[in-house]
């Protein structure tokens, strides 16, 4: 079903919550890096004004080796001494592969970030979808009539969280920019 030795994922790095730099709130310019244990996969732009609640909402297509068991998300910020990792979370591949939902289900996932001392440092919100290649997709008939559960009307940005599809209803403060 997947090509040779890797799988394609569509990952949207949505936002972060309550992320601190040495217990103080982050002022600005946080960004997220996604990687497997062995190689980097993608990184987001810096959020110039998000502070401790950065909002990126960037979709990236990445290839992960088929044997990979985790992908890692790190939230970093630029300091005078270079890029500093503020918090990290490991996303088990089993959280979006396997289970009873169809392959191309759009999973909304959130994880606790921990800093280099292992202390809690905020939450990271992402969405992940396994990309199914065309020949396999035809049997799944991803037709236009499928829809997820509608949004809360009070979600941010006037009712639509860009990039967060009509999926599962979400509480607005989780995805606020």
């Amino acid at each position, binding site marked *: 079903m997947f090509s040779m030795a890797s799988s394609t994922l569509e990952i949207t790095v949505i936002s972060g919550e309550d992320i601190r730099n040495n217990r103080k709130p982050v002022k600005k310019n946080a960004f997220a890096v996604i990687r497997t244990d062995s190689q980097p996969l993608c990184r987001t732009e810096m959020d110039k004004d998000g502070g401790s609640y950065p909002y990126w909402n960037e979709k990236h297509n990445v290839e992960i080796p088929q044997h990979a068991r985790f992908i890692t998300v790190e939230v970093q910020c630029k300091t005078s001494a270079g890029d500093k990792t503020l918090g990290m979370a490991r996303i088990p591949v089993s959280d979006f592969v396997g289970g009873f*939902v169809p392959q191309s289900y759009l999973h909304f996932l959130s994880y606790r970030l921990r800093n280099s001392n292992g202390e809690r440092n905020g939450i990271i919100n992402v969405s992940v979808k396994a990309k199914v290649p065309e020949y396999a997709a035809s049997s799944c008939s*991803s*037709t236009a009539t499928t829809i997820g559960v509608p949004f809360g009307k009070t979600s941010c940005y006037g009712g639509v969280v860009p990039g967060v599809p009509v999926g*599962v209803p979400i509480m607005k403060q989780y995805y606020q920019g």
Partner: protein
Amino acid sequence: MGNYYSDVEGGKQAVGGVQQSPTATNNNNAGHNDAVEFFYRSRGLHQRFARVELSLSAINLRDRDIISKSDPMAVVYAKNIDGKLEELGRTEVILNSLNPTWIEKVTVAFQFEIVQPLVFHVYDVDTKFHNIPLKTLKLKDQDFLGEATCVLSEVLTKQNRSLTLNLRSKIGHVGLRNLGVLTIHAEETVALRRVVEMMLHCSYLDNKDIFSKSDPFLRISRIMESGGSIPICKTEVVNNNLNPKWKPLCLSVQQFGSKDNPLIIECFDFNSSGKHSLIGKLQKSVADLEKLQEGRSGENLTITSHHGHKKVLKGELFVDQFCEKEQYSFLDYVSCGFELNFLDYVSCGFELNFMVAVDFTASNGNPQNPDSLHYIDPSGQLNSYQKAIMEVGEVIQFYDSDRRYPAWGFGGKTFDGTISHCFNLNGSAGSFEVEGVEGNMSAYASALHNVTLAGPTLFGQVIKTAAQIASQYVSYNSKKYFILLIITDGVLTDLQETKDALVKASDLPLSILIVGVRGADFGQMEVLDADKGQRLESSTDRVATRDIVQFVPM
């Protein structure tokens, strides 16, 4: 297959909106009332609808009066299939305004499966009619200010549920003048039930039993206009007691009508043969009972002898507590916590599906014992579990197409001697389904005979099973949303196990309603409810995507 769209509008278009082909169901019930609802339900027909209130306002109405401004009123009609207009309601008259915001709302039953065209007419009500009751105003005597039409679902699917339309002249009349705009705002009526809760006791009752004392219970009936009476409520039976004090009694406005309607309160001595002996009765309205409580006085029961003489008895009825309150409907429990209105799901064509899990842990008490939360009262009084199944199930049944749904028990020891945390309530090995609320009730009653209450109280297994079902339906490309009702009296033995299962299920189309009956540790449940904003965390650092739990103490 799980393809999603990046904006709500696009997603809705893909579904095709709410419009479906008009069915043969007639549209005359757009002005809904309880009698109609009962009619359909008692015949097993599933009228799928939600009550919606329309608020109207207008801007820049035409000025017809010479000396002052127009005095506008709006009338809402449903347009039937044959084109005839049927009035649904009207607003009040607002004096002297070209930009009225009417207060009086018009209630409409929103039916999911049919197109409901609405027509709005705005009139200027002549001064001479200002003191006449609204309903009797003849519209043809008023000045017509404009008309607007739309379909009900158009209003409901708008972002803020407000639709603004240009008013125009009636069809056939040429008129290009600007007649102003009408704004229609729709809200689902919170299905509040007004209830009255009372605690009653009697003293000095006559003894009807030979070798022991009477076993009294009360039956309250409503007197109908035709002269007959219908029982609306019964208390539990208090054994062997001439001064019984009953558990709190709850009557809803739907049951007694108005507080001044006369009610007959009869006190019977329970006989296991079913032929209960009447000890005495009295006639009181709900308002009278309230006065009895305030005055802290009793009222004597009477009994009519064979000769027709009414004898005043020594026995007296007292009202110790009287309290009026409003109870929310189940719909509110589901929708609050997600900042979504129940209609959001339904207006996107979602079908709701129900699942139930019942607590069979030993803390409920031996079902044979009248104090047990699982006691099945022969006089018909429902226990907390039965009440929860009925109240929630009856509403959801409406929206569930085939009325068959999964029902489980947890924490009980089944026939093979092992304790199960998710066993089929119907006792079957293969299927977990029960048919309708009645099927659920009978499966529950027979499970009480076949299952031994045990423990500990764990929800994880039930939640995992429900999540599995919800995920499977996602792949069938169906728009199903699942609501799991867990009824429990308990303290969770493993809170983290439950949190882990909830976090894993948090991005599925599933909501969990936990109803806590007497004794439940509400502190724990409130943690799971996460209404204070603390997202649940699993033991592996995953955080819940959303709050899927709502906790309601019974």
